[in-house]
């Protein structure tokens, strides 16, 4: 039995444990949320180190991207460095491949993402692969990084401008406490009402809303008209939340076990175990091959009818 644990700065309300068999290997996969408590996350990581087969870091990004340039988030690095023996990943290696493929899959196999679709990416520097793929597919992009992270009502419309602004800001932003950039702990269970009111129209104007679930949720207004949401991790409660807001379709990029989709950090940790390679040696082709062997496809769920 291989043990994979996701240690998350997110809410402990989302904790769970499942047993599954993948490519003939038995896995016990569990999640331990620390409600935004950084020190507790460090303690759990030290406790798990050497006692499990792989660790995923959730609720935090280790890396943010501006094109091909990768910036390391200081707080993420502190967590990474607490683990000395066990492979530890944040999902960013897989995310780049998986989310590109999700965009291509939707175009090829569904009618949900026609050219010219108006796409709001609530944040793109944490998933540059998806941003590039959606733009390449001819979507009308709005990158909301400045809007939702900094409260600056400036929609970034091209990947080039996103990259330029990211190059200017990310080298310093990654030094800030992560909670200033991303909702951690209890904040994940609430909405930022001021920003929902001020910036909710960006959601209403979009056909597709894409990005990290906690960010998508935090700023989502009510009264949506059947929009498509492309995101990573959802629970049954999350699906209900989206339905109540008027979301019509939900696409999750990672597989579902026991009624919930897992974060990319968990899936990447599982893949590291299955591949038996160190993280640095794993290539996008390895991820693609593994996705194929695991028959991983985006999960497309209709939540309601488009008007």
């Amino acid at each position, binding site marked *: 039995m291989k043990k994979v644990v996701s240690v998350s700065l997110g809410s402990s309300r989302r904790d769970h444990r499942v047993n599954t068999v993948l490519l003939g290997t038995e896995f016990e996969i569990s999640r331990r949320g620390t409600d935004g408590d950084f020190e507790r996350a460090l303690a759990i990581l030290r406790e798990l180190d050497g006692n499990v087969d792989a660790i995923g870091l959730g609720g935090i990004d280790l890396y943010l991207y501006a094109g091909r340039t990768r910036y390391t988030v200081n707080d993420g690095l502190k967590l990474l460095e607490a683990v000395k023996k066990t492979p530890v990943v944040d999902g960013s290696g897989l995310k780049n491949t998986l989310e590109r493929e999700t965009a291509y899959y939707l175009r090829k196999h569904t009618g949900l993402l026609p050219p010219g679709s108006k796409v709001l990416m609530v944040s793109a520097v944490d998933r540059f692969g998806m941003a590039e793929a959606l733009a390449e597919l001819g979507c009308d992009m709005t990158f909301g990084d400045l809007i939702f992270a900094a*409260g600056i009502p400036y929609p970034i419309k091209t990947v080039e401008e996103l990259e330029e602004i990211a190059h200017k800001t990310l080298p310093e932003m990654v030094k*800030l406490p992560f909670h200033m950039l991303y909702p951690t702990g209890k904040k994940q269970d609430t909405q930022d009402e001021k920003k929902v009111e001020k910036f909710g129209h960006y959601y209403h104007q979009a056909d597709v809303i894409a990005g990290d679930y906690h960010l998508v949720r935090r700023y989502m207004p009510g009264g949506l008209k059947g929009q498509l949401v492309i995101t990573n991790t959802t629970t049954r409660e999350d699906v209900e939340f989206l339905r109540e807001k008027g979301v019509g379709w939900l696409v999750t990029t990672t597989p579902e076990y026991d009624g919930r989709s897992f974060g990319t950090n968990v899936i990447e940790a599982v893949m590291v175990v299955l591949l038996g390679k160190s993280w640095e040696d794993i290539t996008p082709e390895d991820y693609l091959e593994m996705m194929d062997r695991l028959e991983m496809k985006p999960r497309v769920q209709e939540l309601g009818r488009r008007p």
Partner: protein
Amino acid sequence: MATHQEITESLKAFTEGYSKNQRLKAMNRDWDRNVLVLADDIESAHTLVLKDGELSFSEGKTVDPDLTVISNSDTLADMFFGDITPTEPYMNGTLRIIGSEDDILRLDFISLLIWGE
């Protein structure tokens, strides 16, 4: 130790850098704020005023600031001249900013968009 005059010059460079940047002006049309800039090692106070996307400054204090930026004179001058970013002094406590977290983050972004790489 920097002088009051040097801080004034740095704020002049900062506001000029801002004024040349049409994109920044567009970004801040919704954000009217008074920012008090205080040195804690010399007698020096300035007020930055953001209104309708335009940035100006004056010497002296404002009565009711939305944000207060406090640091030693060297750090203030270096920061507004763009020689250092606000992040490091903010993180090590040399720079204190009093205001809402959203406003602090936004001010940081503005500074980086003026002086960033």
